């Protein structure tokens, strides 16, 4: 028994020495954490999947089809955008800095006014200002990688060679929202109707405040014909009763989630007051 204990102590001592050396005798380097899932997915993503991602974004998160669709006529169709882009670069009206198709398409999404297709400009701007919001911000918030995925989709859609490269060191894409679902950081409610209209880019479609959108109904005197309940309902459920002459399903059904109750009431009050 005595021998057994001696051997046991000896062995434990040896193990402790080894473990101690590994813990304290050598510098502890913390290995890098595995690369973030989304980032890595891009890294190993095939172009085919990247295009698929672009398509999903185009029809979903990017809200592009809201305007770029054959029925509304409020924005140019993009089926051949990637091939047309080359001509656009040569166009004298072109204001931007892009020198390649990819750059042009990218620019058109973050700086829509760089080139406005004739007939699609903001009313009264003589096609120098685009009604399209910057999709990298304004609540759409596409990341760099997502914008590139959309470019890939557009190039593929046009039957052109996909020249955009798949980025890897990108901010997390939509996958993050689907899986990780981070708690939304509460936004401080906006305090003026003008700020709300600017924030939610109402003016892209509607003529309201100082905005001159022409896609949706003119709201400059909306308070004269509609009551607050109707206005509230139109904001919360835009398709409940679409105005005559305007197609249902055009206005995004997002405000019930994105607007705070305070903002909603303020906006309704404001609109109801426009007579």
């Amino acid at each position, binding site marked *: 028994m005595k021998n057994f204990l001696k051997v046991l102590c000896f062995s434990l001592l040896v193990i402790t020495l080894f473990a101690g050396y590994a813990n304290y005798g050598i*510098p502890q*380097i*913390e*290995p*890098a954490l595995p690369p973030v899932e989304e980032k890595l997915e891009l890294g190993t993503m095939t172009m085919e999947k990247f295009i698929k991602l672009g398509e999903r974004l185009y029809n979903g998160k990017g809200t592009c089809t809201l305007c770029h669709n054959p029925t509304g006529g409020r924005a140019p169709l993009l089926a051949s955008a990637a091939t047309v882009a080359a001509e656009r670069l040569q166009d004298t009206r072109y204001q931007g800095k892009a020198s390649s198709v990819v750059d042009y398409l990218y620019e058109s999404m973050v700086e829509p006014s760089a080139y406005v297709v004739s007939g699609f400009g903001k009313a009264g701007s003589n096609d120098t200002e685009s009604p399209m919001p910057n999709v990298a911000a304004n609540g759409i918030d596409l990341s760099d990688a997502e914008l590139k995925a959309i470019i890939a989709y557009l190039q593929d859609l046009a039957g052109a060679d996909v020249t955009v*490269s798949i*980025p*890897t*060191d990108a901010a997390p894409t939509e996958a993050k929202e689907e899986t990780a679902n981070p708690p939304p950081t509460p936004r401080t409610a906006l305090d003026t109707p003008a700020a709300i209209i600017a924030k939610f880019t109402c003016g892209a479609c509607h003529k309201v405040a100082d905005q001159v959108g022409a896609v949706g109904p003119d709201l400059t005197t909306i308070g004269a014909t509609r009551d607050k309940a109707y206005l509230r309902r139109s904001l919360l459920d835009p398709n409940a009763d679409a105005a005559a002459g305007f197609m249902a399903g055009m206005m995004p059904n997002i405000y019930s989630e994105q607007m705070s109750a305070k903002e909603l009431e303020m906006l309704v009050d404001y609109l109801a007051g426009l007579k």
Partner: protein
Amino acid sequence: MKMPRLLQAVLVVVGIYAGFILVFDYLLGQVIPSSLLSMYMFFVIAGVFMVYTYTEESARELVAPIKALVEDPGKKRLRNVVFIIVPLLVAGFTYQRMSPSFEAPVELRSIHPAPPATVKAYGKRFNLATLENPFRQYEKSDPDKFRALVREGGDIYIQNCQYCHGDKLDGRGPYAAGLNPTPLNFQDVGTIAQLQESFLFWRIATGGPGLPKEAAPWISSMPVWQDFLTEDEIWKVILFLYDYTGRRPRSWEHE
């Protein structure tokens, strides 16, 4: 009279310790790192212990003075002194080690961090496993062109790199003294001679900010050269680095 074996053993250990310090710190002028020296001494002591205890007689002789100190009634006074001094020494040592000092914490940087599989530079992706120096082929096929390329690489080096890495490529350029970590010494056999050219391309193109986490802290002041040099210029500089130092890039193919 024969020296007691315990004293002999202690003297051997102390002698080796002093020898290390003497040789490295004074004769060679390159201090021996204390962390390494303590590991060295641990195993030197283990070795001395082995040599002094592999026979029964020798082992008995070695521990005899210790045994006598503990058991011999005639050594009571000495025993009491030792039993007070030893714990005091241990306590003093522990205090020394534990008391906070003004010394900055030791920072450790991996000299060769593991490269990523691919690296993005110049808006392109490079696969580091297969990436090769496009000019290396001329070494065989067109030596004159190769010489010219190396010379161009040398010019680029002198214009951009030598301020830190030195005109002898020894990491002792005019600004080197101000940098920590100090610039890499390409003459050292442990640096570029151990690496493939693709690794150098990665380190030059993405610089300090491109280091992976394990090479943290990211205090390397190596610029991101892809912002200043073209791809070809980097490859030419790499040719020059190997040519001037007389090293060969690591490669798994026989030539």
